[in-house]
């Protein structure tokens, strides 16, 4: 495993080190038990020494109890170590992600980050626990048992020179061949899940097109494939246990034959023979465990890799040295600003524009015209790849990030509310806001009317993802949340699409009268949402095609005219 992961050990280190110590203790005692046993047989039973039996017997019981104690302690330590290690990893990952810029988040994707913090960590935790227990236990056990075998009868140890390589090669062959098959099996399983998932989500489509049989065929096909691959893989794996048994039995037979010879020759005792047979099982079992650990490590490797990618990812946006801690006003200047998400094509090319503080600006344009990209540069959610963006006369790269983002309030296109009460959600804008301020913000965003109809008003609990409020209500709460920041610049990125035209107009009117000094930028699909702006930007393909007032644009801008025409037939008849 790589460095960033080991750095996360922290308070797990103590237990991660203690656990192998106890494991070694347990193993040594476990090796000692058959040895004592052989002494009892040879010196006690065979010689008829009752006193010896009692003495060594007592020692034997004490040894067993200590072995049990060490075993338990090792179990406890490894549980603690693994739980803490995974907690630390998760914590480190989460904190790391908090420093990520938008570009970093895009790079991993939301789903990718979730997997890396959930499934991958769980995998690694299991592997880690196995490693600090079994990966220590098995080799120690094998070496100790082999050592004892040599000590008791070195010639007998020669058996293992043949058997161990045989078993190692056999187990390796099985794993080598089975591993790729299992990878394929899991791949096919994903396909099966996909079929079931799509079927469940689209069950209305399936039923209304009467496609039950087609779906069943599709399912059976994948199911067959799983049957074929899985049987094949498992049949290979089924060689494991017979191979193991073959090795153990062969060892026992060889030990029995040689043992009998040695006993007759006077170089071995009956007790020692028994002892050697016990060791045979322990040695070969350990070998099997070692091969299992290798499989575990291979599987955990991918997870470890993904986690350390997050931990080593550097944020693309940093706070400058000696940052500017005050934003003078809400004026914005784009100075030959360009931006690219990576790749050859610029998303935004060479935009120059000046927006005076306190004005209202509307932005209109189709999907992919880079409207969102343009405004995200203002809060420095992305950095320009060419040119500059200035807020309050200062380059955004010179500001303290928190200062800048407190002054520039954005309502993103993908509005998210979090589980918690409405008041808690609104306080994201200002943690210290009192109820009067919260009510005021809600009123400006026209959210008060419906919030106050809820039985619990501002204490109403919002479910995860805001699923218990409608789209329009969610948008208005998000606007209220942004207003509570009392920003110098307020940006609404298509944030009123689900709000009816009348409410939309009311919100805009409130902006005009209540926060006249704030610069307002409104991205919208509907002309009616931007019609009254001081300036409207028409964007197409990463460029500002035209800008001006509604009337000016109606006269001269073709794209604007087209959009306007298409919306005239419909619901834009204002009250």
């Amino acid at each position, binding site marked *: 495993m790589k460095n960033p992961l080991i750095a996360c050990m922290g308070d797990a280190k103590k237990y991660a080190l203690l656990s192998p110590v106890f494991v070694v203790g347990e193993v040594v005692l476990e090796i000692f038990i058959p040895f004592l046993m052989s002494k009892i047989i040879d010196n006690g039973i065979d010689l008829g020494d009752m006193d010896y039996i009692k003495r060594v017997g007592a020692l034997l019981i004490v040894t067993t109890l200590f072995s049990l104690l060490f075993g338990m302690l090792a179990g406890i330590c490894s549980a603690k170590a693994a739980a803490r290690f995974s907690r630390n990893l998760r*914590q480190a990952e989460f904190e790391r992600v908090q420093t990520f810029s938008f570009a970093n988040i895009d790079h991993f994707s939301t789903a990718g980050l979730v997997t890396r913090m959930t499934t991958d960590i769980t995998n690694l935790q299991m592997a880690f626990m196995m490693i600090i227990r079994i990966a220590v236990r098995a080799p120690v056990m094998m070496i100790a048992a082999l050592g004892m075998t040599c000590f008791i009868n070195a010639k007998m140890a020669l058996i293992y020179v043949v058997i161990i390589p045989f078993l190692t090669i056999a187990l390796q062959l099985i794993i080598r061949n089975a591993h790729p098959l299992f990878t394929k099996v899991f791949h096919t399983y994903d396909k099966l899940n996909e079929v079931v998932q799509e079927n469940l989500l689209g069950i209305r489509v399936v039923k209304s097109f009467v496609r039950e049989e087609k779906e069943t065929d599709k399912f059976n096909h994948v199911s067959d494939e799983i049957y074929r691959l899985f049987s094949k893989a498992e049949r290979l794996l089924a060689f494991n246990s017979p191979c193991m048994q073959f090795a153990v039995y062969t060892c026992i037979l060889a030990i029995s034959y040689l043992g009998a010879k040695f006993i007759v020759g006077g170089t071995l005792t009956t007790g020692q023979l028994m002892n050697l047979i016990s060791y045979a099982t322990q040695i070969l079992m350990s070998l099997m465990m070692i091969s299992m650990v290798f499989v575990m490590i291979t599987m955990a490797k991918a997870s470890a890799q993904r986690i350390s990618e997050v931990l080593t990812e550097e944020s693309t946006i940093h706070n400058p040295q000696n940052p500017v801690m005050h934003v003078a006003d809400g004026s914005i200047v784009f100075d030959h600003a360009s931006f690219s998400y990576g790749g050859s094509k610029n998303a935004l090319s060479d935009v120059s524009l000046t927006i005076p503080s306190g004005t209202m600006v509307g932005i209109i344009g189709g999907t992919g015209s880079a409207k969102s990209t343009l405004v995200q540069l203002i809060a420095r959610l992305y950095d320009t790849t060419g040119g500059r963006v200035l807020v309050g006369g200062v380059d955004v790269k010179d500001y303290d990030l928190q200062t800048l983002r407190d002054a520039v309030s954005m309502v993103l296109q993908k509005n998210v509310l979090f589980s918690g009460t409405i008041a808690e959600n609104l306080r994201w804008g200002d943690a210290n806001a009192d109820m009067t301020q919260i009510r005021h913000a809600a009123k400006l965003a026209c959210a008060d009317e419906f919030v106050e109809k809820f039985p619990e008003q501002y204490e109403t609990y919002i479910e995860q993802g805001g699923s218990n409020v409608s789209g329009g209500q969610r948008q208005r709460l998000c606007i209220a949340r942004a207003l509570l920041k009392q920003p110098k610049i307020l940006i609404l990125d298509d944030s009123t699409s689900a709000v009816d035209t009348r409410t939309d107009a009311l919100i805009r009117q409130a902006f005009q009268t209540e926060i006249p000094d704030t610069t307002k930028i409104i991205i919208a699909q509907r002309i009616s949402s931007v019609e009254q702006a001081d300036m409207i930007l028409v964007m197409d393909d990463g460029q500002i095609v035209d800008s001006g007032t509604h009337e000016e644009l109606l006269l001269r801008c073709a794209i604007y005219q087209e959009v306007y025409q298409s919306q005239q037939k419909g619901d834009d008849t204002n009250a």
Partner: protein
Amino acid sequence: MREPKRSMKFDKFAAKRLMDYIFKPHKAAMCLVLVGIVVSSLANVAGSLFIQTLIDDYITPMLGQEVPNFAPLVGGIAQMAIIYYIGVAANLLYNRSMVTIAQGVLKEIRDEMFEKMQKLPISYFDTHPYGDIMSCYTNDTDTLRQMITQSLPMAFSSLITIVSVFFAMLYRSIPLTILVLCVVAVMFFVARTIGGRSGFYFVRQQKDLGALNGYIEEMMDGQKVIKVFNHEEAAIRDFTRLNDQLCQSATNANRFANMMMPIMANLGNLMYALVAIVGGMLAVGGMGGLTLGTIASFLQLTRSFAMPISQISQQANSVVMALAGARRIFTLMDEVPEEDHGDVTLVCVEETGKDLKETTKRTNHWAWKVPEGTDFTYVPLNGDVVLDHVDFSYVPGKQILSDISAEASPGEKVALVGHTGAGKTTITNLLNRFYDIQNGAITYDGIDISRIQKPSLRKALGMVLQDTHLFSGTIMENIRYGRLDATDEECIAAAKLANAHSFISRLPEGYQTVITGDGADLSQGQRQLLNIARAAVADPPVMILDEATSSIDTRTESLVQKGMDALMHGRTVFVIAHRLSTIQNSDLIMVMENGHILERGNHDTLMQQKGQYYQLYTGAFELE
């Protein structure tokens, strides 16, 4: 789901039914497996007994001989070798057949489960969480696999071993056997106690893990909002709390689980030690007629006895869990399938003079085949739909629709308008009999739809839902989903009609572009267009359209609208409207509220009424 409580109990019913799946179709193979297990276990036991023969019959006599005769020893070892290797062969044989049987059983169960599920009514899917159904196919089948391939043979072989070792022990020494039984009792007690504790904490751990993972998902989803609001520290604070909590419960759960193995192994060692000590004392004291060989072999037997017992105690939990999973699977299989008592079917017809004649050719000319006595009459498919005083409730006592009447003649357009929960979607659920009405009647071309076989009815009704639901596969395959025998040309024609052709042709792979994850790479508007094309290729006389609400940019939206308009042309259409601009030309507009029809008429008459519709239209109310 009628799920049995999460108690740790052995589910006899599920076990028996599962055994039927395993034994009935695989009788011969299972017999072979059982024989294999018996042979393999007995070979193992024979090995433990061999020690005694080795010591007492071969080694001890040789010790007395001047010139030791090794011939009997070689014979004995050879005999043992044969027994051992037969055991190995039996092991290989049963292991390999067992995995094939297990995979066969799982396939059987999986396929049956899916096939049965396809026959369930929509109400089942509406009332059962998607995750629960999904886990029948993932977790539950997986634990079942482990149980059949591992626990089942292991349990049987353990049983054989325990029984034969027990008798072998009894035969050698009764007092030592009693001693062994006492220790075994302790082992069982410890296993139960620790197993119970560990189970308790595992449930807690799962709960905490669920909470933390839920939090992670929510925060990652809103990560950009966190950045915009400088909310990083608060997010870390809450995360830390949940993370610490999980760490605590994970420690507890794994502590007990980790202790299980060393405790059981060392209790086995303790048993071993006690047998050596007590056996030794008895032998030295000259009691019980114990020889050195007997004690040695008894010790070996003790090992063989302790092993399966600790295996069984470790497997017990997984068997119980697997059976709980099996129970959930069987519950899904036993759900009552969608009932269909209809006797009217949709058939292709040819016109011969004035009569309609049924044909197997696809004539694009359809008729209802209505049985009348022993004969049939043919009613041409026109698309005339009537709702006559319809009442409906999903749950008895909670009326969703009351007294709804409407009439749509062939080619007419009926629009449903109203707030969320007003009952618009419910009406569409009734038309294609996803749900059955309680009172009143719905007729299609004058035939009560409860008389029409569901597949025929649904073929005669097209649906475009606002949630698009595309399937993994090429775009062509997705369009063809509407009619499986449609040619490529017909699919492309449908795409042209739906206005989808131009964006599809711009994709590098065109119609062969593979869609994954419900079309995640396509925009919402493009998904809608494919949705429309899919319905267009089916070409039914009656369409139900649920317009999309999500914001699509203006240009795509007008494309979607044009596609919809083209699709509606010449058909009877029910539209659930979210934008009033699109329904002004409807023949009938019904404004709904709380399951009632509030206003009805066309655009002009409703505007004159200055009622709800007027207010909606002028933007005074929100339509959601």
